[in-house]
């Protein structure tokens, strides 16, 4: 195996993890929230009760772990691959989440929604083909630091 093919393999493996774990995390969160039931009212007491229920739900924790898996793969792949390559490649997640929603949760997806997802993927592909860095790296950053800043790196 050449070093180039090894890099390709590594990149596509991590992209695969992203495209699986990101939507899977969303679907698990959705299942977890649906299991908790509809929120009857949005009063502070009800929200506090919901907050406790969220963090004692195994399904939601599985979703969070899955999203952490996505985030780790995303961060790692960005350490060598171009952002302009990774971002459009990850747009397939929108399609995967719809497929998972349909097959795992039994959601009904109308043709218009499928078409909308396809248009979103096209939009993300176009955004991803624009230069990933448009700011000048040598110029100083604008002075927008909030007063809470403790240290400048």
């Amino acid at each position, binding site marked *: 195996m050449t070093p180039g093919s090894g890099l390709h393999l590594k990149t596509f493996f991590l992209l695969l993890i992203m495209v699986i774990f990101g939507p899977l995390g969303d679907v698990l969160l959705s299942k977890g929230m*649906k299991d908790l039931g509809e929120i009857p009212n949005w009063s502070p007491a009800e929200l506090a009760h919901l907050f406790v229920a969220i963090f004692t739900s195994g399904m939601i924790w599985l979703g969070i772990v899955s999203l952490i898996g996505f985030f780790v793969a995303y961060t790692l792949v960005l350490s060598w691959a171009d952002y302009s390559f990774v971002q459009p490649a990850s747009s397939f997640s929108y399609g995967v989440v719809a497929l998972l929603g349909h097959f795992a949760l039994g959601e009904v997806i109308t043709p218009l929604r499928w078409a909308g997802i396809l248009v979103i993927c096209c939009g993300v592909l176009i*955004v991803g083909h624009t230069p990933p860095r448009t700011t000048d790296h040598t110029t100083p950053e604008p002075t927008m*630091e909030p007063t809470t800043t403790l240290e400048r790196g």
Partner: protein
Amino acid sequence: MIEIILVFGIVVIGTGGEICLTRAMKTIGEVHDFRPRALLNVFGRAMRVGWMWIALLLMAAGFFSLLGMLSLENVSFVVPVTALSYVVGAYGGALFLGEKVTRQRWLGVLLVCIGVTMVWKGRG
């Protein structure tokens, strides 16, 4: 009405958090060393930047908005709608980070908006 507020939370507040995160990481500077010890050092420096704390607060609000929305709507509806963050990201990047948003990027953002409108209309 609550759905609009939650979408606002996911898209505007959540993306606002990501913009603050970008601002914080730009303050830290580009990361070259990816060894665990060096990454821990970057993490420690990042946590001393005020923008990072604002980012975490806003992103947490965005996450809970996502959970709220997922309790009301199907995931195959909610996740595509979150693509509106590309619109907020393009505006926010241009306004607050001085990024140059090209015509091509605006075209992509426009397509995302059209797609989200179709997803919204196709709720069934």
